[in-house]
């Protein structure tokens, strides 16, 4: 049953992604409503799928990387729907929904479910949830940075097309960038702390210098510097946009680290 819901969600996210991408280059109120409807419907089936999984109880809550990614995708769509309904930021969908779709697809492509951490420790889901929420913040910052660079390029080259009309003003994107990092950062900090504690409980050491932990720490430090840089030397606007895009690459490498570690762990 859960699988069916996931597949329906995947289908809806895919259609939503296509619709939102077309919305970027074509002006159509109807299409934009359809796209939002698809995302909303996908979010509902996704919620049902996650709830079913949670209550089935046959597995530990978020402890597999697949489930974590699925939760990440769900939170992204939640954030987008909130922004679209409350702030009329429909255009975010053209960037966030593809990201949500890709992360959900990767759960299906990735090798068979392997636990992130030793299942003996029941509280591990707290670590995963917090880290994922932090990642959602960075993903939104990444999207804002991407949109900033696109809008900046369009303004510099004096191209006034549908895309430049739809993208929000630069100042707004810069603030969205900053606020998303500000929201994501505390979650990641707590995620790393709880991760260290779980490592201490299950493996007997806070830090075992595996690729996942190293990249997590590098990412954390990087975003800390980005935040400090904005306040002290004015790393904002275009620079901030570039930095958050690079930072998100760090996040993706952390994910890669998790996959490598899980495959290693499942062997041991």
């Amino acid at each position, binding site marked *: 049953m859960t699988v069916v819901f996931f597949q329906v969600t995947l289908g809806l996210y895919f259609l939503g992604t296509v619709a939102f991408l077309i919305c970027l280059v074509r*002006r159509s109120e109807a299409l934009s409503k359809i796209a939002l409807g698809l995302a909303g419907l996908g979010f509902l089936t996704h919620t049902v799928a996650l709830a079913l999984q949670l209550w089935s109880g046959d597995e530990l809550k978020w402890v597999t990387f697949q489930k974590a990614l699925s939760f990440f995708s769900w939170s992204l769509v939640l954030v987008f729907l909130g922004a679209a309904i409350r702030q009329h930021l429909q255009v975010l969908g053209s960037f966030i929904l593809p990201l949500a779709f890709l992360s959900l697809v990767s759960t299906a492509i990735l090798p068979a479910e392997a636990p992130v951490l030793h299942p003996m420790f029941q509280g591990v889901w707290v670590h995963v949830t917090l880290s994922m929420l932090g990642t959602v913040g960075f993903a939104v910052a990444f999207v804002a940075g991407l949109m900033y660079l696109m*809008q900046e390029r369009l*303004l*510099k080259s*004096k191209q*006034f097309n549908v895309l*430049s009309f739809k993208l*929000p*003003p*630069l*100042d*707004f994107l810069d603030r969205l960038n900053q606020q998303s990092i500000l929201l994501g950062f505390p979650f990641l900090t707590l995620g790393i702390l709880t991760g260290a504690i779980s490592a201490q409980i299950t493996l007997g050491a806070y830090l075992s210098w595996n690729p996942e932990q190293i990249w997590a720490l590098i990412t954390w430090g990087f975003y800390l510097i980005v935040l400090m840089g904005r306040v002290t*030397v*004015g*790393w*904002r*606007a*275009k*620079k901030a946009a570039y930095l958050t895009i690079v930072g998100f690459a760090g996040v993706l490498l952390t994910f890669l680290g998790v996959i490598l570690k899980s495959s290693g762990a499942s062997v041991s």
Partner: protein
Amino acid sequence: MHIITVGLSHKTAPVELRELLVVPDSRMGEALSRLRTYPGVKEGMLLQTCNRVEVYAVVDQVESGFSAIQEFLVDSHLSLSAEQLLPHLYWHSGERTISHLFRVTASLDSMVVGEPQILGQVKEAFRLALTHNTSGIILNKLVKKAISVGKRVRTETRIAENAVSVSYAAVELAKKVFGYLSARTVMLVGAGEMAKLAAQHLVNHGVRQVLLTTRDPGRARTVANRFQGLPIPFEEFRGDMAKADIVICSTGASHYLITAEDVQRAIRERKNRPIFLIDVSVPRNIDPAVRDVDNAFLFDIDDLEMHVEQNREERRAESVKAEAIANEEVDVIQKWLQSLVATPTIVALRKRVEEIKQAELEKALNRLCTLSDQDRETVEGLASGIVNKLIHGSLVALKSAAQSSNGSIYIDAARRFYDLDMSENAQGGDSRSSTPPRFSDQAKLNPSPDQVEVSPSVNPKISHESKK
């Protein structure tokens, strides 16, 4: 009943003539009431903007209605002769009047297609007509529909979306960078006309502070006063550039006043906050190399004009959609109007059969004086039943035929079959049969001296159909 319009607009008359025809606000009541006194004029509304003067009226006969309105326009101003006025007028009746009003309200007939003020001006004209009781059932429905068409066109098409003037384009582009302009500061370097206009638009959009510099300190103070701005010495403006989010340059200098280094320094001081520069001077005063500075956005007069031209192109494309909306709504009103045509006949028909029924019932009941109350009710019910069933088909046919093109044939037939004209005439109640007086062409256009003269000055309250 016919709907007609007579008027002139920027398309048919020069401004010198248009301004002569404008009736000042203080005279509107009198003018509207006078409009109703012309023979055959049942309802009237006077729409005036600086680009048009139009009278919409409901009249008995189209031809005499045209003459009456024409006469009204000439009478409204003594120094204007019929010969001067006639070549500039246009006349519409029926469906074309409806379509014209819808197009006007949707700003499709405006000098700048998509301009926002005409809708308010139509609303005001309608309000005045209501206040002075010159708008009745037909104009009420028509003008309300026109206003809704105007709104629909604005929400469903992008006809009024983008700037079509260079000075307004500056605001639009500034918004692309800053979003809200409320906490922003703008610096004017030089005080050319276009720069002042752009600054005014920016202030209207909430810009917080205006800094101003010109070579002549006295002039700087004068212009600064206009925007409640702060004059700064010309020699020092580069140092203050970091305070400005928007810089508008329009001096007569023949060299670059602002270089890439100046902008770079300002942006450094602003901790990389973007700066938006507009150069409307020719020759240019801002070094084009500024384009390559990060977080600086430079637009010169050509860029702005290109932007405006694109927007105009888009408005033209959108006006096709707007025309379609207006046409669609014309049909709706047309059907309603046609259904109105049948109403007097339907009323007369009901009245006629009711009279026959009552008369026959009276005769019969007088003879049947032994009937109980219950029996009387049965007989009355029988009569009503027969009559209602007999005319039901005719009423339905009339109602539906009224909305088709051959409605008048049905109405005419019904009036003859049921002898309605005869019976109404017998009662002396037929307004249809009275022919409105006709005017001889010359006599009607010579204003009589006792008619009120309307001041030739343009009403200052009538704002321009804006060039937004």
